[in-house]
């Protein structure tokens, strides 16, 4: 089951101390207390604080557990995730919580409930997932998008949205952060703020927080991932637009990556002041594919007409031409390229003709780009994908030799189109061919400059005002938290 998670998550959590059928044996002193809903000792009668996940036990055991519960220590899913002891236990629980079946049930329940109550259900689909679905079913991107839209709308969704729309905000905020960090350190000869590591990849975040928290967290970009921004768009902006409480909105995402389930479970992504998740459920591309298989023939023409179609183009997976939004710069969101091109233009005020851009490919998944103007190096940018290159970046940082301005770090070799949740072929050769056709489709998506994207600019102005507003700061940015190694882990080292 843990196979679906990125190599980084699997590698960084080797010691699976508790299986789902056991109680957590980690000493309480060792458990992180930072997250809200941490450990509650003797917290009597506050059922609203019931754990998100009770560690599963067999039936007999769980009833005794329940009867003792009021005196016992509660461990939430977040504690499990925050503890570097045993992600795999949490993984099992997570997959159960965020499965295709759960999503379908939730959409059906939503549809039933919306008969007597105003509710909204949205599914946000990543372009990598769309490309994988299209490639595996030999469809064009538009046909695949129509299939996915029809499927989710028949299942009960009101909107099916493109996560690239949210990524537009991610990119804009990433460059804004880059400028801010640069300005704040410009005169201080302070290289301590360099580099900035992109933080959209949850596998990388999981590793950074748990394995080298103190070292890496200060360098992580605080910009939310596209999924997390889509969560804010739906549960904050759409809620306001429609006058529907966030708790009455159901929001699921389809991602190329199982680790996104971990991301959605972070307390940082609760609707502020509530326990409502901004993303209620994440399913992987491969899980969507299974759902589509089970659904059989889907009439792509018999779509439920969406509410207020004309006013919410941003809530549609494809535009009137049948296109999703592309951003270029590779298959993982294009953060590094976006920062680079914007910096050349808007920071250095130069044109591409005036600068020289040289690339060194250290290996297939490690690309260094240097931008110079005459003899002067203006920028050093890198894309480092896969666990080995994460290690290379971490080692460089430790040795004080990580002289990049921005690094796009992704846990999966090949980046997000090759994510752990994508549809895979059986043999190695077939996999390479599959990835090739997924990449080809992904690359065919027309690229839109985030600053020129009219719908995004309009929504941004209406929702946030500017990127520097307080609400933008709350809803486009997040925080990361170093996790201390548990005492148990230290105690059980054997040789």
């Amino acid at each position, binding site marked *: 089951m843990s196979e679906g998670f990125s*190599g980084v998550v*699997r*590698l*960084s959590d*080797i010691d699976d101390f508790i299986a789902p059928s056991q109680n957590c044996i980690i000493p309480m002193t060792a458990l992180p207390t930072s997250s809200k809903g941490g450990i509650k000792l003797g917290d009597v009668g506050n059922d609203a604080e019931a754990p998100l996940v009770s560690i599963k036990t067999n039936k007999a055991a769980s009833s005794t557990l329940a009867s003792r519960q009021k005196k016992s220590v509660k461990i939430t899913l977040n504690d499990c995730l925050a503890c570097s002891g045993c992600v795999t236990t949490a993984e099992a629980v997570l997959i159960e919580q965020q499965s295709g079946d759960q999503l379908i049930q939730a959409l059906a329940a939503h549809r039933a409930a919306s008969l007597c109550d105003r509710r909204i259900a949205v599914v946000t689909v990543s372009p990598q997932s769309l490309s994988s679905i299209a490639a595996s079913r030999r469809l064009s991107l538009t046909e695949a998008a129509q299939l996915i839209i029809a499927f989710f709308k028949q299942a009960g969704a009101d909107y099916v949205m493109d996560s690239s729309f949210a990524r537009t905000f991610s990119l804009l905020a990433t460059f804004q952060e880059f400028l801010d960090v640069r300005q704040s350190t410009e005169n201080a000869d302070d290289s301590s703020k360099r580099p900035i590591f992109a933080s959209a990849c949850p596998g990388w975040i999981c590793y950074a927080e748990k*394995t080298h928290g103190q070292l890496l967290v200060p360098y992580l970009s605080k910009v939310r991932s596209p999924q997390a921004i889509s969560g804010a768009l739906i549960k904050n902006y759409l809620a306001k637009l429609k006058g529907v409480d966030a708790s009455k909105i159901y929001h699921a995402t389809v991602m190329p990556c199982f680790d996104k389930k971990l991301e959605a479970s972070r307390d940082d992504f609760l609707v502020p002041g509530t326990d409502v998740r901004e993303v209620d459920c994440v399913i992987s591309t491969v899980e969507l594919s299974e759902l589509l298989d089970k659904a059989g023939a889907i009439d792509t023409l018999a779509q439920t007409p969406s509410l207020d179609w004309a006013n919410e183009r941003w809530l549609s997976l494809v535009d009137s031409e049948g296109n999703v939004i592309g951003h270029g710069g590779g298959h993982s969101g294009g953060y590094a390229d976006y920062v680079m091109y914007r910096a050349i233009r808007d920071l250095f005020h130069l044109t591409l003709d005036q600068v020289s851009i040289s690339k060194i490919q*250290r*290996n*297939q*998944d490690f690309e260094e780009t240097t931008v110079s103007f005459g003899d002067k190096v203006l920028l050093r940018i890198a894309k480092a994908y896969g*666990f*080995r*290159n994460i*290690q*290379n970046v*971490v*080692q460089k940082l*430790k*040795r004080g*030799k990580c002289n990049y301005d921005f690094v796009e770090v992704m846990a999966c*070799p090949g980046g997000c189109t090759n994510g752990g949740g994508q549809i895979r072929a059986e043999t190695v050769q077939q996999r390479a061919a599959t990835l090739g056709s997924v990449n080809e489709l992904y690359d065919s998506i027309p690229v839109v400059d985030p600053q020129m994207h009219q719908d995004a600019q309009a929504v941004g102005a209406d929702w946030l005002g500017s990127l520097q507003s307080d609400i933008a700061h709350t809803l486009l940015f997040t925080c990361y938290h170093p996790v201390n190694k548990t005492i148990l882990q230290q105690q059980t*080292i054997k*040789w």
Partner: protein
Amino acid sequence: MSSAKLLASLNAHSERVWCVKWNRTGDVLASCGTDVSIKLWKKIDDSFECRSTLTDAHSRTVRSVSFSPCNRYLASTSFDGTAVVYELKDGDYEILNTLEGHENEVKCCAWSPSGQYLATCSRDKSVWIWELDEDEEFQVSSIVQAHSQDVKYVAWHPNEDLLVSCSYDDSIRFYRYDGDDWIVVQRIDGAHESTVWCAAFDGDGNHLATVGDDRKLKIWRRYPVDEPAIQSTWRCVTTIDERIHQQPIYTVDWCPLTGLIATGCGDNSVRLFRQSEGGDADAPTFDLVQTIKAHDEDVNCVAWNSKCAGMLATASDDCLIKIYQVQL
């Protein structure tokens, strides 16, 4: 009949000695162990002097050492989770780099025949392949997690960039570079019935010896033998069963000069084997030529000198290193 003469018994480690390795010119022996030190022994004719003790690099047991083919670098691995590379400067090995990344105890390290790569393996189940770049920095060339348990040992083919790893999961794995990353080319599950502790190629790289907790010594041969080793498939051609070794076998080395196989066993003995004359290449037989009661406790490591034919170093839980000269 061969006879092994004890040349020296080196008593300088205060706790168990885990590993001994000769440099490629055969005149320096490195040893390491639980006392967190690495000692370098200079061979002067048939006697040995401890010329330096490296104690700064690690904070816990030093589990293995390995010299690069050019002798310029020495690597060590430790239960502290790191590997350290030293560079020879003015006759002394000085710390060049600390390689961090393994989650926990690093069990073994080995340099590729070209000296370009250093392989390390760990209790974290992974094998890492590091590559020295132009700035004398080590880049991670690959992280392969092909085992389901603790990886005990890694060894390189003598002429090609083919790596083998041995694990607590009873299996061995072979790896090669595919142009961008390292890939597993052959998996042999159940290579032994228990932990595979060690592996050693013969001088020409056509055979591999493995030993395990199952008290067996196995000989593997590659097919087809006239193709490059990275393209061949390994098959077990001989098993020397537990009637010979009645305790787990922790170490094996295959002398490139004499063709002798040495094993070190939990019964404190070192055994020497030689392939029988004639015989079938697909089913060779090996004769036990001598059993040496070498130590008072487990023998953790045996190492043939690759320049002085028949010179064997052994390391044991009894804190001693012994040097034997085997006469053929």
